[in-house]
């Protein structure tokens, strides 16, 4: 007796639960490693999971095991070549003694770190943990909302697809009881009795009169049954649905990037890295989020993702053109009644003389009232970091934007000088609201 069973179609990933348990347990350490890894990796690679090594502390499994040294040990080895009894072999590598055998580490666990690979999902989840778009629900426009149908009790009218069978049958049963609908059993019994009497060859007078009476009753019952139907239209109940207001969560992120001549390769690279991170974050966490890419030199242009990240462009710098373009996009496609608007701008802080005032005016008067949140990232030259260490100092644009930041609490500005800065700055900008003190009302 034997049987073969093809298990290949059985569900895989039986150990996914165990894997999650492990991740939960090692979470803190894994997270540390993941965050550190951002410094060593190209941002475009982030999206592919990676192999990481975490310290075994906290995930080790202790056992009583013999130590690998000390005491007297006897071991038998195969493959003797020239040894005679009484020969001595130099420790530690002189003979077969070197490699520790069974007393050594079990499954390489004695190592200080544990290496394994994270999947892309796990990596990104950890990476963007505790980040969110601030003020996702429009506070000022809460009454302008979208609607979603929700179950709300039962009604007597509706479409057949919504019939609630249980309710309907309850009603029907109550009505049948109240109006005294004859039961099937009752009628069946009567019919049987009639049939029995009918079948008699020579019925007596008594029986004949009884038969007559029974027939009368049966007729009455049948009539009654017709009057009181099993299910009447008045019994039927429908599930009721009513529109329920839902807070608005549609969001659009507008990315503005300076690609003018003053932005060198390094600056552009940093800005792009920042936007890649932002893009990845939005894709990962907000399925419904639109992203608009606008790049500008002395003219601004809305472009697609590929052009934004990969194409080369050069020219003068007029920042306000990008803001104008942004306003145009918002007015054309993203009415504020339906959309939460977010802005992220990256620049080296240089601007055409005289344009800066125009920018601040536009931001303060037109853009900020529309936006839930606006982040400005200034890409610094590494030499400049020394000079511009404090918030007070900065290029023309930085100085001007500070007045906007003072007036609007949902305007944030940060500086980035090297790749290592990107992730911390990003975290600061998008830390969960509950962590921040100031919540706009």
């Amino acid at each position, binding site marked *: 007796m034997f049987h073969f069973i093809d298990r290949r179609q059985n569900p895989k990933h039986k150990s996914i639960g165990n894997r999650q348990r492990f991740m939960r347990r090692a979470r803190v350490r894994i997270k540390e490693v993941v965050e550190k890894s951002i410094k060593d990796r190209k941002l475009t690679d982030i999206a592919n999971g990676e192999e990481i090594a975490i310290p075994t502390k906290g995930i080790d499994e202790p056992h009583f095991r013999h130590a690998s040294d000390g005491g007297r040990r006897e071991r038998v080895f195969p493959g*003797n070549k020239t040894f005679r009894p009484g020969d*001595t072999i130099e420790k530690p590598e002189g003979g077969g003694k070197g490699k520790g055998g069974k007393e050594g580490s079990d499954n390489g666990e004695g190592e200080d770190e544990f290496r394994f690979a994270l999947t892309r999902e796990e990596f990104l989840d950890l990476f963007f943990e505790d980040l969110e778009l601030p003020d996702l629900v429009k506070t000022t426009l809460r009454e302008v909302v979208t609607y979603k149908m929700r179950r709300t009790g039962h009604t007597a009218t509706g479409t057949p697809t919504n019939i609630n069978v249980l309710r309907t049958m309850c009603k029907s049963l109550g009505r049948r009881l109240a109006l005294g609908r004859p039961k099937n059993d009752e009628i069946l019994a009567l019919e049987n009795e009639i049939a029995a009497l009918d079948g008699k060859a020579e019925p007596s007078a008594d029986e004949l009169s009884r038969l007559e009476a029974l027939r009368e009753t049966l007729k009455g019952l049948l009539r009654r049954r017709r009057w009181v139907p099993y299910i009447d239209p008045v019994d039927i109940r429908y599930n009721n649905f009513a529109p329920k207001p839902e807070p608005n969560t549609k969001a659009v992120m507008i990315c503005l990037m300076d690609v003018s001549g003053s932005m060198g390769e390094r600056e552009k690279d940093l800005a792009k890295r920042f936007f890649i991170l932002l893009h990845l974050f939005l894709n990962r966490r907000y399925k419904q989020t639109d992203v608009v890419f606008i790049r500008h030199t002395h003219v601004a242009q809305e472009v697609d993702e590929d052009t934004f990240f990969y194409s080369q462009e050069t020219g003068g710098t007029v920042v306000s053109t990008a803001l104008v373009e942004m306003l145009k996009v918002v007015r054309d496609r993203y009415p504020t009644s339906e959309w939460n608007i977010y802005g992220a701008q990256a620049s080296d802080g240089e601007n055409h003389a005289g344009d800066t005032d125009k920018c601040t005016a536009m931001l303060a008067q037109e853009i900020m009232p529309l936006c839930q949140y606006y982040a400005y990232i200034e890409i610094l030259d590494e030499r400049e970091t020394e000079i511009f260490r404090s918030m007070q100092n900065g290029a023309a644009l930085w100085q001007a934007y500070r007045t906007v930041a003072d007036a609007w609490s949902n305007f944030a500005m940060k500086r980035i000088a090297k790749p290592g800065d990107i992730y911390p700055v990003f975290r600061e900008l998008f830390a969960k609201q509950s962590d921040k003190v100031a919540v706009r009302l």
Partner: protein
Amino acid sequence: MTETQGKREPLFEGSEWTFDKLRRTYAAIEDIALNDLGLEVYTNQIEIISSEQMLDAYSSIGMPLMYQHWSFGKQFLREENMYRKGFTGLAYEIVINSNPCISYNMEENTMAIQALVMAHAAFGHNHFFRNNHLFRQWTDADGILEYLQFAKGYIAKCEERCGPAAVEEVLDAAHALMDHGVFRHRRPTRLSKQEQVDREKERVRYEERNFQDIWRTVPTNGNGDDVKDKTADADPEKVCTLNLPEENLLYFIEKNSPILETWQREILRIVRNIAQYFYPQKQTKVMNEGCATFVHYYIMNRLYDDGLLTEGAMLEILHSHSNVVFQPDFDDKRFSGVNPYALGLAMMQDIKRICTEPTEEDRTWFPEIAGNNDWRGTLKDAWANYRDESFIQQFLSPHLIRKLKLFLCVDEAEERHVMVDSIHDEQGYKAVRSALARNYDLALIEPDVQVVAVDMSGDRCLRLRHTVHDGVHISEKGRNGVIAHLRRLWGYDVDLIGVDRDTGEKLYEVSTAKSAAA
């Protein structure tokens, strides 16, 4: 020799397998296994799985059902990483000591390998599981899957009720003590799943009824014993009621811990029962693999001789076989200890040789079996009645010691050199053989730690004694970790004393109380 007996067609050609070929091949293998070798096996249930499922199986210690724990996830990640990077291949099969005997065969195996694997697992291991006395006495092949089902359900229920963190804490601690959660001498009782459930209920009822009787915190005058013994370890009666000394630490904690709740005790039982189930496998690595390898080697050769295997298939099988039984020399880069497959197979083939073509030497060393011409019976007897240590002690022949060029080294910590004590010569055979046997003695491989005393009326400190053999201590990191876990289960301080086996001298003492103070 292919076509000399070529009256029969090969069972299969090419490397692709189909269920039809598998069935045909299985039947041919079964014929040899049962009628020629005379094996007795459980009904086979052979399941074909994919490589991912194999990885899953790896991480639940090879069992088809297992409760959930993060350490299995860690194991999975490690295996997966090794596999992805190509450091290790996956096993061709996994076989489970259950009735019916379940073996998992990999989908990726070629037909030749499937044949090899069926002979190896479905007959070799299966026969060993069914007949070896350790497995017969200590494991319950009929009930194991049911029990695992129960364990999985029970632990999931505990997680639901008490939260995964609380369950994890108990499991962590229980796993740390798993190696010391087996009865080495007493035989455990067998229970079916229903009996388990019943017993658990009964236990709960009992403990509810006798709540304060389990651990009296206040000594009463009515019970004279409790008052007078201030030092419980000195009181023989007290030691007697707790059945001390106790080598099964998990059992002791489960029965006597002052702080555990019923479900926590049940979890300890589950871990303990699983440890007990695997205990025979740990003691029979050489024999189990040797038996399976011997059986597959014999059957494959018979199939080939009968013309049932093509030359190509046989070459592939031999290639795989010689990889498995490869034994590098001690000075080889690849050396990592004695290969149990190689040693087991070599010894069993040697027994066959002694039975059929004994030399004078064999007749003096093995008068009972030399030349008895019944190598099948002799091997079956060995498979049934020995474990690694006794098997080597009994059957390792001078001929094989010479063939493997075994030699014995003694390593004293204070010496600057390792001494070659004995080699494969007349004076050395016995010493080499005994030493090799001892290398497989689980009682010597695992530290000997026992509960010796509990101060029940005082601070409830749990005293453990580690009997130190040959001055080999327990590695410190693991030791402290395990003691910390023990303390968590016991609820009070735990004390571990290392005592030399021969002199009785106290070598070291560690305590959770001291480490907390330090």
